[in-house]
């Protein structure tokens, strides 16, 4: 089993760091699925008592890593499955952070065995105070998951949704949901094919209705929406406010637009296109709304 990858582009390195930082805010453990064409990072603390939702990021390996070599343990496998601390990964990559004064030449990821299996994150850094490049190495301890257990670590599928709206006001949305947390334990997404999204939080003390209008309708396509009565109807789903807020507060990426898909009464699918082949997903499951 071998894995080696190298990043050279500053922008990609920063994005990769921002992804790791986002995941570290959501969960203790992070699953890294290393495949030939893609790398996936998954955090899933659904089963724990925490309020974090399931979040995963899929990265086209060729986009981020000019050097990318993976050799599974056996030729018939097509994956390496690793579990590591999300915080460790984030800290190891912190040197790539945008805004830090040092410039980074390259960053390598290598799977190694040093007492324990680790992903060595090796960054070559030039500080503003000196011209000499320095090597910063962090060995992130990992657990190698045997193929027999892979079934519990597989990539989630994006559920089928009736409507997908592009909301360009991520900053306002984040602030709003954060405040709703103090008002009500759950709130409702109402989507309409007219390009409107209403968020409704209700409690004994107050009802707060927020309208996002003139949104881009990604789904159903304008062409298909001739079906009439069905598209007129509102699609709604109620979710846990803390869980939604945990997702929005964790985001460390500079995106301003988020796609919100609603599977009526089942779940909310959130999708952030970091770039065309690098996509972050999350699913907020439905909760029973008190009406």
């Amino acid at each position, binding site marked *: 089993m071998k894995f080696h990858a190298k990043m050279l582009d500053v922008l990609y390195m920063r994005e990769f760091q921002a992804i790791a930082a986002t995941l570290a805010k959501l969960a203790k453990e992070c699953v890294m699925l290393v495949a030939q064409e893609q790398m996936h990072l998954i955090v899933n603390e659904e089963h724990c008592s925490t309020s974090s939702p399931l979040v995963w990021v899929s990265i086209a390996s060729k986009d981020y890593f000019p050097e990318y070599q993976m050799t599974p343990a056996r030729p018939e496998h097509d994956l390496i499955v690793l579990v590591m601390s999300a915080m460790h990964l984030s800290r190891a990559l912190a040197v790539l952070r945008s805004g830090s004064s040092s410039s980074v030449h390259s960053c390598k990821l290598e799977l190694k065995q040093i007492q324990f299996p680790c992903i060595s994150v090796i960054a070559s850094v030039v500080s503003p105070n000196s011209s000499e490049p320095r090597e910063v190495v962090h060995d992130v301890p990992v657990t190698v998951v045997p193929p027999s257990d892979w079934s519990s670590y597989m990539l989630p599928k994006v559920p089928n949704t009736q409507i997908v709206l592009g909301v360009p006001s991520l900053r*306002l949305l984040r602030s709003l949901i954060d405040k*709703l947390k103090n008002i009500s334990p759950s709130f409702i997404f109402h989507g309409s094919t007219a390009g409107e999204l209403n968020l409704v939080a209700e409690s004994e003390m107050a*009802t707060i*209705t927020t309208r996002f*209008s003139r949104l881009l309708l990604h789904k159903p396509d304008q062409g298909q929406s001739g079906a009439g009565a069905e598209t007129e109807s509102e699609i709604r789903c109620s979710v846990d406010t803390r869980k939604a807020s945990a997702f929005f507060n964790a985001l460390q990426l500079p995106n301003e637009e988020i796609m919100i898909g609603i599977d009526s009464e089942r779940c909310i699918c959130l999708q952030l296109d970091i770039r065309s082949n690098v996509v972050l997903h999350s699913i907020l499951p439905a909760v029973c709304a008190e009406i």
Partner: protein
Amino acid sequence: MLTQSQYENYKLVCRLEHMKALYSSIKAICFSDFGTLHASEDGILITVEQGKSIQATLCIAPAFFAEFKVDGTPSFSVKINVLAECLSLFGLSDCSIKILYKGEGAPLLLLLEPHDDDQVSTECSIKTTNVEEQIDYDLDANSSSLNTIFMRGPDLSNIFHELDKAADEFEFTISPLKPHFKITTLGVMQAESSVEVAKSSDMVILFNCRATTVARYKSQQIKLTNKAMQVASKVAIKTDGSGLLEMHFMMQCDDQEELYVRFFITPLLEVDGN
């Protein structure tokens, strides 16, 4: 959305283009569960109390609003922290706000529209309850010991900010002779400290003192004025022989006192008999 004619059904209609000052003033009095709002031709008063020893009132003159209509003297109580949360739904983005109230039993309506995103708007409907009884505090305006100091807010805020946070009590001394204005911190292990401001200091706008007054207050209660202090442009401190402390925090930079917070804090009883 509401049309002009629908407004006529409302007992109270106010509109503000920028709600930042309103939000920070409400935040400044957010130290208790419920706040009571009284509206009249003279403006709006929102009062919050904690125990029987501290009371804060936010006073807003009609001129503060871009639009202000009141029918009679409506009054009601709301959860003050819910009101504050609603005003801050969009975080740092400045919003315009409309405040509407239909009358007894009706909710308080807030309509917020962020200036930087015209695709977003929100409507909050906050449950109101009956008015709670309040204590009437008053300093004796004719007392010979009525002392009044006006100070620049940011400078006084610095002084209060640096008071030892471990102290149990603060003692305020106001006197016509030196030290003029002095705060002593009491009840700190292994240390005692004090700060004095001379009346000739540039931070003192007005110093009106005929007789020395000395009184002690719970430091926790003084600390409840922190948020008001931090945003105040000007602070008035008034007290008399009884020790009752009245403080006014002006929230606007200009001299028009359209928005201010008034605190009343009762003194601790002298226990050491000196």
